[in-house]
């Protein structure tokens, strides 16, 4: 999942960033610690589930719940870890990576693009 922070709702996102990129090197001590304490990664797995639900034909309620949860969790993470203007807008997109074509090359395609949502409206306590 990628996100972009926009200054206006109609702005075109140019600077997409991967949400919570995985570490370059996962050290053994971190691996062991994560056996007992792994909340952020488990939330990432939930985000993957939400993304899969959005891409599966389900109900409008499920789609609304999945999109809302994805946006809320990204906004909350940004609120806690990065400085941004509460009047800015958040947009997310889902990239699905798969093998395709006759040579089974690994390709990436944008499978979902959300609307722009006011950040202040997404940050809940």
């Amino acid at each position, binding site marked *: 999942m990628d996100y972009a922070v926009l200054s206006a709702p109609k702005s075109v996102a140019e600077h997409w960033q991967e949400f919570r990129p*995985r*570490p*370059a*090197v*996962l050290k053994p001590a971190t*691996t062991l610690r*994560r*056996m*007992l*304490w*792994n*909340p*952020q*990664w*488990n939330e*990432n*797995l*939930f985000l*993957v*589930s939400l993304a899969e*639900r959005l891409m599966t034909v389900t109900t409008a309620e*499920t789609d609304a*719940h*999945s999109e809302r*949860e994805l946006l*809320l969790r990204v906004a*909350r*993470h940004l609120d*806690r870890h990065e400085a941004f203007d509460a009047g800015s807008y958040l947009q997310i997109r889902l990239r699905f*990576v*798969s*093998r395709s074509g006759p040579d089974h090359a*690994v390709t990436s395609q944008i499978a979902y693009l959300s609307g722009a949502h006011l950040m202040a409206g997404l940050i*809940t*306590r």
Partner: protein
Amino acid sequence: MTLDTAVNLTSGMMAAAFIQQSLEHLRPAVRLQERLLFVPRLLLSVLLLAASLGIHLPGIGPSLLALALVVNHLFILSFFNGPYNGGADRMSLLVLLCLTCTFNLSNPAWQELAFGYLGIQLLLSYLIAGWVKIKNPDWRSGKALRDVFLFSAYPAGENIRKWADRPRILFGAGWAVMIFELAFPLTFLSAPTLIAGLAIAALFHGANACLFGLNRFFWIWICAYPSILWLQERVMTAAVRPPLG
């Protein structure tokens, strides 16, 4: 292993696993609404753990605590619109439901059936996973496991992705997993082979936890191990016992 011992062990292990899961939802980074769902789960799990350790709780037995955990779980399922952590959550609910039935049913035969169901489901979890994999040509060729490392969302670090460059090792690992999962029901034939099978399975879950960050799978799957150990002994005892009269 007696039914009481196995049930008590499962109950204590599940409560400990639920405590670990609940604590992950109680950090400040989590929304208040979500935290409020996991406070009761934590408290109920602590009480259930205490009860399984033999601490007497006046007026609160494991049957009531397990029922309360089921009700709490229904609210959690609704909040996340399904499982939060995929198979780990499904297994959590299965263990909880089987224990709740065992605690609350009065007929010993029904208690055995409810608890034995958990053991059977554990056995099937490996068998069916192996069957699904071996039917898939990509798993048989090693491509599926290579793709898991190459571009799936699961590798917990970029360094782990580099395993995709070792197709021979992954081909062997894929076949080892498939053969083990398909052969797992054979370990049920004796207690020593079952213990060995469960030890290998725990290592498999441990590897998944390290490589893919699936720590909850490790803890909740081993919670079901006492049920299959009890079931094996129960089935084998019934098989060798001479008929009455």
